[in-house]
């Protein structure tokens, strides 16, 4: 089954209201999963307009309005969580990563985005990278301190991932590294999903 990314190039995040978008986001890292719809917010962003979201969902999902509406809310929430809740930290990296399963018309959120959205804001999370083999997605989270509470919250997310994506194979690791040089070595040649400078 093929995956088709929703086209987010025009209007997906709503019309930008210049009076509302005082901040400019300058992300430091580019997520490398464009084929699944990750998109950087590299320009000014304003309020996400729900109506525009719904119309975009409509364009692609081609299912009944009620379901589209439900998914629009999911996307809206997702977008707010990833974009707006982190606004003060200016560490924005991704927008909602929503894909349409071809032929079935259901919208799903990729494992990368589900994992990332659930953990990137936790204390001491410094980076999240993906190292995939042909059949296993290996998520590596780097903490800058051995924070057992954060680790346990991430473990909960991992368990949910197994339930949410029964057809995927995952491996998870959490590294504790406090030196930037050593973190850079881990990030080298890996797919960086998140990095907080």
């Amino acid at each position, binding site marked *: 089954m093929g995956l088709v990314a929703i086209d987010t190039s025009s209007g997906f995040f709503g019309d930008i209201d210049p009076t509302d978008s005082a901040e400019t986001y300058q992300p430091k890292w580019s997520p490398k999963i464009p084929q699944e719809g990750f998109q950087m917010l590299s320009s000014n962003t304003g309020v996400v307009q729900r109506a525009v979201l719904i119309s975009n969902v409509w364009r692609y999902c081609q299912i009944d309005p009620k379901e589209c509406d439900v998914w629009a809310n999911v996307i809206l929430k997702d977008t707010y969580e990833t974009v707006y809740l982190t606004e003060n930290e200016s560490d924005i990296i991704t927008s909602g990563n929503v894909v349409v399963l071809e032929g079935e018309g259901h919208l799903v959120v990729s494992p990368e985005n589900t994992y990332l959205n659930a953990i990137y804001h936790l204390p001491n999370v410094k980076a999240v990278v993906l190292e995939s083999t042909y059949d*296993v997605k*290996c998520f590596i989270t780097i903490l800058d301190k*051995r924070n*057992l509470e954060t*680790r*346990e919250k991430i*473990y*909960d997310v*991992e*368990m949910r991932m*197994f339930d949410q994506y029964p057809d995927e*194979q*995952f*491996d*998870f*690791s*959490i*590294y*504790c*590294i406090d030196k930037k040089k*050593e973190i850079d070595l881990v990030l080298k040649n890996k797919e960086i999903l998140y990095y907080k400078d």
Partner: protein
Amino acid sequence: MPGKTKHLDIINDNFEALCHLSSPDPSDHTNWSTTIIFYMALHYIHAYLSKKNEHPTSHKVLEKIKFYPKLKPLYQKYRHLKDDSEDARYRGKKLSVYDMRRGVLKWFSDIQDEICSILNIPQGNKCNIYDYFT
């Protein structure tokens, strides 16, 4: 593929190595102690899975722990051991004896108690690792 008895033998071998490594001063090599204790826990998980005729490769172990209801409560403890042992092996992290007792030893003991209870392993066959980290 090794069966339950073989896995329990490996645990005992590892425990002997741990005893040597931790005497006289357990704080000397906590990085290697953590690694050995993780592998002891891993073999307990494998001992359980072998009774289900499951012999998963390394990355599949987590999925299996999540899958079996009796193992599921051990997921977090196993993950803590895995992460601490990787930090020890690959990044040279050494925990203090205090942190060992507060974390690594406790997580291992919980896994050991649970698996021994499920597999009816006598109390006397358990490894009392606390004795070596005082």
